[in-house]
């Protein structure tokens, strides 16, 4: 098999710097912000607007506008939270884990992937707060001295989750910004207009590439990457424990923490590919994000799909190997009951469809790859639906069985967060360098 390059032949540090800066600075004044960006931004803003209306109505009318009720007290709020936070993980896996492994293809992708992490984590963080019912008291989760003499319940996985998300969002933001410091300095020094120089100058904080500044840069970046890798695994393990910690049928399983990590990797790689494939030609990134990157991400997606499929098989095996009749009934309800299409949709989209990536021609077909990644994201959403809703709707006591139907306001909030994700990401694409230029220069220095 011929090895594909991680960067197009003939590319230099200068040509790369010019190309990446031009996306942000638009140095050639005759080249305006492209039309596709404005159309995408307009669509994203309208979705976001719908989400804002949904949140305002929620604040006014309360949680009754959602379809959650007894016994399904967790619905779209937790479902979408778990879905978004899993999507966020892809950036950290690529940026931190593959940095530690020293793989070269990671260099062109890490900024894009980290930016996706931040946008998705922002969307995820909204749901647990809104789900509180009285979101203005969200700070009660902080362990702060208060006149009520109360503390958070540290034995609860839900409080562990709060600490996990807090640490993850803060560390991801710092890691992202730290990686951006040299590139903001490049934009500052390249900008022609005063406004741009001031804007990027403030963001660069006075980074000039001095020996003193570089000496401490790499060690901090490397140690942070080494910490981010176990952090992302811990976050998704704790999300799994949110469920495993409850004595609910279908949730109370030691398999959940690794299962959720597998799912996070799958949806994380899928969203990176989903965004990367259209962005690559639109921004002219083909010299830096080559077929090699798409091929590698396709393989990673296939690997994580196999891990998730293993978890689905083990779920079925352990259910029938174990002694609990309620677990068996729950499994049969999942595969043949009211929500059976959700279960089979999950299996097909997450387990079966990505098997096409065994063939290189499929991995390198952008349209097919995009469709499979989109299918995986839908599949991961369906997986969360079947985990959360089916277990709650079919409790151990048949007299307590219920049903869950999401309302318009839940759907509008979901699409509102998709709008938030796209809006923030489009702003990032427009305002910051989407490829890590300083790291690319160091890579270009090495013989290819």
């Amino acid at each position: 098999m011929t090895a594909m390059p991680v960067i197009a032949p003939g590319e230099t540090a200068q040509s790369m710097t010019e190309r990446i800066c031009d996306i942000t600075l638009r140095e050639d004044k005759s080249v305006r912000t492209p039309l596709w960006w404005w159309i995408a931004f307009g669509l994203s803003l309208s979705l976001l607007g719908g989400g804002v209306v949904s949140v305002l109505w929620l604040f006014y009318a309360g949680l009754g506008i959602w379809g959650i009720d007894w016994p399904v007290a967790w619905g779209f709020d937790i479902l979408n939270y778990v879905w978004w936070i899993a999507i966020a993980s892809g950036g950290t896996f690529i940026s931190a884990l593959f940095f530690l492994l020293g793989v070269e293809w990671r260099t062109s992708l890490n900024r894009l992937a980290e930016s996706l992490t931040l946008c998705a984590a922002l969307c995820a963080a909204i749901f647990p707060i809104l789900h509180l019912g009285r979101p203005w008291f969200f700070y009660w989760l902080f362990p702060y001295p208060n006149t009520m003499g109360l503390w958070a319940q540290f034995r609860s996985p839900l409080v562990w989750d709060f600490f996990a998300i807090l640490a993850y969002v803060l560390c991801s933001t710092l890691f992202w910004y730290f990686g951006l410091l040299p590139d903001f300095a490049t934009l500052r020094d390249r900008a022609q207009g005063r406004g741009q120089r001031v804007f990027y100058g403030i963001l660069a904080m006075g980074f000039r590439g001095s020996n003193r500044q570089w000496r401490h840069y790499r060690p901090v970046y490397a140690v942070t990457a080494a910490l981010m890798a176990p952090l992302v695994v811990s976050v998704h393990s704790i999300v799994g424990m949110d469920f495993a910690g409850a004595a609910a049928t279908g949730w109370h399983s030691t398999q959940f923490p690794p299962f959720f990590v597998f799912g996070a990797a799958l949806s994380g790689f899928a969203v990176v590919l989903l965004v990367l494939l259209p962005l690559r030609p639109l921004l002219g990134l083909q010299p830096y994000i080559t077929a090699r990157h798409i091929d590698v991400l396709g393989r990673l997606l296939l690997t994580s799909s196999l891990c998730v499929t293993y978890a689905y098989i083990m779920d079925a095996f352990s259910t029938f190997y174990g002694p609990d009749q309620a677990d068996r009934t729950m499994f049969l309800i999942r595969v043949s009951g009211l929500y059976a299409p959700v279960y089979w949709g999950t299996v097909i989209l997450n387990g079966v469809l990505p098997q096409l990536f065994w063939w290189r021609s499929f991995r390198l077909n952008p349209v097919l790859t995009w469709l499979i990644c989109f299918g995986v994201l839908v599949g991961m959403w369906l997986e969360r639906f079947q985990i959360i809703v089916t277990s709650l709707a079919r409790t151990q006591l048949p007299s307590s069985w219920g049903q869950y139907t999401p309302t318009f306001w839940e759907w509008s909030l979901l699409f509102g967060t998709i709008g938030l994700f796209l809006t923030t990401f489009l702003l990032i694409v427009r305002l910051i360098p989407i490829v890590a230029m300083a790291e690319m220069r160091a890579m270009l220095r090495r013989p290819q």
Partner: protein
Amino acid sequence: MIIASFATEVGLGKAATDLLSRNVGRVETYLGMEPQNDQEGSVLPAAMLCGGLAGGTGGFLMQVWATTISYPLNIGGRPDFSWPSYVPATFELAVLGAVLTGFIGYFVLAGLPHLYDPVDESDRMRQPMQGGYVLVVYPSDRAAVWNTLSAHAPIGVEETEE
């Protein structure tokens, strides 16, 4: 100060080494990526370890104090001091402590934020972060600096006020 730009990183490195060996003033190099042969270590990984230990220990002790002294609560008959359940928050706070220490420590040691420096007056200083190689000398012996630099064939040299 004397500001010189070079065509290659090797040229910059040789000139800086020569100037330092002649002890003709303080030398600072500027380039747009990590230096290739930087042998000097950093104290920040050790500081991050300490920050992580402080974050983790502080987080653990906070949970011990909250659940055994300040607000003991019987949850399913579990002991007040149920340390295994403190582990997740302890780990998260340890990571947060380490990363915050690294980030703040970096800003302190790298002298940031530092929005203005007299070197910014030179247009040559816009080159390093775009892929150029620049050296700044704060000379104690101007003539010696000029002589040394000319031996290393810089692509441009200028002198500005400090």
